[in-house]
């Protein structure tokens, strides 16, 4: 058991079983399908209300994603701590400006390059999730487990654009 906690990575099947149990507990106890992207919309709406109230005064923030410290926002705080404790215990935790070896090999050491792409990519992801009605967790897995067509249409779209994006970024090394 201790050895398992100290492993940096689990088999994706074992980690997947844990995530599946998390979904079951969440749906059974809280009645909510856990999702990650909604939190940014709720919290972003809160910031918009404080900084530029006119921006939050629309149908989306009034009815679809009301601003506030929602269930999803608190969930995300938990996600942060869970990942932090998991990586700390296994010694996988480290702070780095350009964290990934594969990234450094392909795109170099430049910090601004990584951060700009990370920021722009994050905006694109959240924008897409907002239109689709969820992300990989809330929509793809959370909808897929009910065989909701939305989940599979979303995943098809995700790969239909993700593969060409990876081809463009890696080109000859694809």
């Amino acid at each position, binding site marked *: 058991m201790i050895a398992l906690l100290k492993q940096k*990575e*689990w088999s994706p*099947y074992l*980690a*997947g*079983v*844990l*995530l*599946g*149990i*998390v*979904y*079951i507990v*969440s749906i*059974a*106890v809280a009645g*909510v*399908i856990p999702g990650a992207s909604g939190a940014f919309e709720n919290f972003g709406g809160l910031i918009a209300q404080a900084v530029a109230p006119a921006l939050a005064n629309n149908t989306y923030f009034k009815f679809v994603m009301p601003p506030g410290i929602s*269930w999803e926002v*608190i*969930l995300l705080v*938990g*996600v*942060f701590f*869970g*990942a932090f*404790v998991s*990586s700390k215990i296994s010694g*996988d935790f480290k702070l780095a400006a350009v*964290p*990934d070896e594969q*990234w450094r090999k392909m795109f170099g050491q430049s910090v601004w390059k990584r951060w700009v*792409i*990370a920021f722009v*990519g*994050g*905006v*694109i*992801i959240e924008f*897409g999730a907002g*239109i*689709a*009605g969820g992300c990989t967790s*809330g*929509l793809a897995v959370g*909808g*897929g*487990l*009910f065989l909701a*067509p*939305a989940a599979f*249409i*979303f995943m098809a779209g*995700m*790969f*239909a*654009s993700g593969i060409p*994006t*990876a081809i463009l970024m890696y080109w000859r090394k*694809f």
Partner: protein
Amino acid sequence: MGDVLGPLVIGFFFGWALQKAGLGKYHKIVNVFRFTDLTVLKFMMTALAVAMVGVFALNTAGLVALPTVPATYVLGNLVGGLIFGVGMAGAGF
């Protein structure tokens, strides 16, 4: 307090599972689109299958009500997915 503790605990194990699957790492995410590492799919589909069996078993036993299933609106789901994939493969989140 239960309102805060519930999502906090659920989120904790959610984050734990993702970290242990290695999905905090750029290469794990981008490589699924290069077909060199299918961890993302193995992880997601295992979770999907386990949750599907568990939720419907509990529902059949009359213990759990089904939540609102994510809405299907073909154009939105598809266009959202297409935009999402660019960010996911580009930034590796």
